[in-house]
């Protein structure tokens, strides 16, 4: 049974933009699926439909064998606790400490009063520290989040998502605002999470060199439709031009 199964998914935004036009795909457990495509091709919309940050217009999404297309309330929050998410802009709480930011990953399983009074069980604090060690920055725990570099902030975001012990980790262009060297090091943490903990990863990426290096499978979106599905090494010149347009040329980053 697939971990995730999407069928004929459509999304129309209130302004009339038809962002997804009948996307179907399935993801097996343990995969590192990379989604590529131009800006505006629907990559972010697809990712946000999976953890239901946005409401799909039609179609179905099955996660762990359950139809989650229209779950709401407590059920929706429970779904979200099982799916971690990392964003292009890191989306940390800038004014709070790194440790506090990591702990927020656990909010879904903490009580409201407890979390507002910020009385966290020692086990949660320990777990947060352990996750900071996994992403290699345990010494930054007490610093303010916005005092860290971009790459470090993204690692904090990964640690935050690890607090959820996610079955699935979504990454929306996680390295798009980082320099090439930092990009590679951040991607290695996704690889580590994927290989060591067996967490399934779905990641939107721009650079093909990163795609070839980390993806176990690739899907390409163009104007809201899946136009390619296959192994990363099978994307040749012709496919590249088809995905990114005739004028595109591949740039290498290492």
């Amino acid at each position, binding site marked *: 049974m697939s971990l995730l199964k999407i069928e004929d998914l459509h999304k*129309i935004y209130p302004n009339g933009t038809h962002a997804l036009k009948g996307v179907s795909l399935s993801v097996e457990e343990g995969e590192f699926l990379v989604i590529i495509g131009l800006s505006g091709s629907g990559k972010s919309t697809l990712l946000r439909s999976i953890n239901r940050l946005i409401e799909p*217009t039609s*179609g*179905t999404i099955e996660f762990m064998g359950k139809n989650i297309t229209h779950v709401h309330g407590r059920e929706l*929050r429970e779904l*979200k*606790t099982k799916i971690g998410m990392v964003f292009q802009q890191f*989306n*940390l709480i800038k004014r709070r400490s790194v440790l506090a930011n990591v702990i927020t990953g656990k909010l879904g399983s903490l009580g409201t009063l407890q979390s507002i009074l910020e009385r966290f069980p020692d086990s949660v604090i320990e777990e947060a520290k352990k996750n900071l060690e996994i992403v290699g920055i345990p010494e930054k725990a007490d610093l303010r989040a916005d005092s860290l570099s971009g790459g470090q902030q993204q690692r904090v975001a990964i640690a935050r998502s690890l607090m*959820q012990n996610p079955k699935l980790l979504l990454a929306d262009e996680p390295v798009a605002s980082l320099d090439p060297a930092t990009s590679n090091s951040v991607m290695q943490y996704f690889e580590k999470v994927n290989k060591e903990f067996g967490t399934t990863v779905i990641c939107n990426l721009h650079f093909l060199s990163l795609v070839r290096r980390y993806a176990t499978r690739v899907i390409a979106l163009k104007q809201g439709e899946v136009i390619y599905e296959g192994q990363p090494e099978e994307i040749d010149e012709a496919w590249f031009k088809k995905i990114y347009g005739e004028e595109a040329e591949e740039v290498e980053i290492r």
Partner: protein
Amino acid sequence: MSKHKSIVDPHKIIKDRKDREEKVNLVKAALLDAFFVFYSIVVVQRAVYYKFWLELRELPFSWSEIGAFAILSLAAGALWASSRTSISARLFSIHKDNRITKYSVEIFGWFLFNITFIAGWMITRVSLVDLFTKEGIEGANRIFGSLLSPELGIFDEALFAIIETVYIALVATIVSIPLTLALSFLTARNLMKDNKVQAVVYYFFRVILNFIRSIEPLIWAIVFSVWVGIGPYAGMIALLVHTIASNAKLYSEAIESIEEGPVEAITATGANKFQVIWYAVVPQIVLPFLSFTIYRWDINVRMATIIGLVGGGGIGTMLMQYQGLAKWNEVGLIVIMIAVVVWIMDYVSAKIREAIY
């Protein structure tokens, strides 16, 4: 496992939405054009024709005439908007992109501006003659002269009164904080868009706060001086009510302009609404809230001086008494003291707000 296949056709949704939007915009444009035409007819008739041309003192008025204008305007508006060359068609972006539209927008827009200015000139009875009458200038001389030679004998009395004023403002500001906080979350659009109940709560409080805010503290002071009796307490409540209404708007606007990223991230962890607000919203709004509140204290001191004029206590009440007795030297001292205190408050609050950021 049961799967419900979707029967929604996305393309139809898009088309329906466009059609509906187009129709709604056309109706809006027709109504707005009708209003423009109606306004033009009335202003031209009354201000330009009756007042300026015929120089009538008493303007004739009849409801049946107004009614006839309204019907005429509605017809004209509907015709004009449906030709898609009107000013409103342009405003709602359903216009034909041609020369007729361009001219009708430019010429009619210029026409509306001019008749509005002429009407305004008539209504405010602008007169250079009144500014330079002999008696007028003598009166002004007398008052300015007295104000510039203040009576120091009432300094102690004025000092106590102005301290009372500052405290009225302070208490009103402090008491407003918790209530404003609660209301600002309930009137922030981005937090209240999840379901219908939230939308109802949002509009309910918005309407009430808008109503309260649109009534000046001076008028609230009149209401409360009847309710709780003349004095500082009435002034304080009047300020409090208005402070809550205006700051709730500022606060909720601050909430609406926060970065959405952290909200999205915390929501994605499966956190509930309270947790999202506490972790993703609150840290982003603490500083603006503090800044608004301090600024409001400064505004409240200024308002508290005015509120005294209608029985809200403090220095304003004192000012009113001496003004009533035409003791302009005493009034002079009070005005100077108000100016000094307001200036100090202004300076202090600006410094504190600078230090926060």
